[in-house]
């Protein structure tokens, strides 16, 4: 049963990834990406990270995709057309390296021993995540908000028109 879900979700993911990589039209690429996000959210749910799945959907599928679409619409179509597609040469160059990097890691992962789980999760996922977030990792949490602030300022600065 698990493997079935796994297979379905993985297949969805794979197809979307191929779409992201090889589609020409940027709008199509963004749509494919959206599909990837959804697939990943599904995987999160399968893995029992409910909070994260929800957050993924909210942040990625809503905020980030909207960002991309917004930017795409500011660019005139003709200009975008020139830069569609991929670099063939670089693709050929990179494939062997990718393979070289994937295979050993995969090998290590398969052959390696992982640590055995120590804790027993009694509460629900959201509770435990929330608890960890607000007690152990409070500082990074605050820092994350500062990052967001900085990014906002940066984006505004970058985006304004030069008068």
């Amino acid at each position, binding site marked *: 049963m698990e493997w079935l879900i796994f297979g379905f979700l993985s297949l969805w993911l794979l197809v979307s990834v191929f779409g992201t990589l090889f589609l020409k039209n940027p709008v199509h690429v963004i749509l494919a990406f959206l599909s990837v996000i959804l697939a990943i959210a599904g995987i999160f749910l399968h893995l029992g990270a409910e909070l994260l799945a929800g957050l993924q959907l909210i942040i*990625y599928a809503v905020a980030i995709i909207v960002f991309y679409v917004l*930017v795409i619409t500011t660019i005139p179509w003709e200009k975008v057309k020139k830069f569609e597609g991929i670099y063939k040469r670089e693709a050929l160059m990179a494939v062997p390296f990718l393979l070289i990097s994937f295979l050993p890691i995969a090998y290590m992962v*398969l052959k390696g021993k992982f640590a055995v789980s120590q804790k027993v*999760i009694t509460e629900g996922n959201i509770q435990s995540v929330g608890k960890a977030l607000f007690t152990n990792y409070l500082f990074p949490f605050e820092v994350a908000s500062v990052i967001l602030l900085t990014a906002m300022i940066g984006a505004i600065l970058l985006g304004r028109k030069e008068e």
Partner: protein
Amino acid sequence: MKIEVAYILISIFLFLSGLFGVIIRKNLITLLVSTELMLNGVNLGLVSMDKMVGGVEGQVFALFMLTVAAAEVAVGLGLVVAIFRLRGYEGSSEITQLRD
């Protein structure tokens, strides 16, 4: 093989695909999309590790990464807009020179 291990393999694949996309994409926007793909792959890996080992640290970290990804998209897209305004194009081949 456990499910989590398979998911780890998937995550590695996702990461490398994102990297591949960064290498081959001409359009800046689609390049940034591939970057997001990489981040997602890492998130996936973290969460599946989390499931294997127990504890919630992985998910917390993935949460932070999510936040940072959002910020980074904002900034990156701001850059793309600025480039478009300057050059009129948005191809990565247009920004090869440091100066004219």
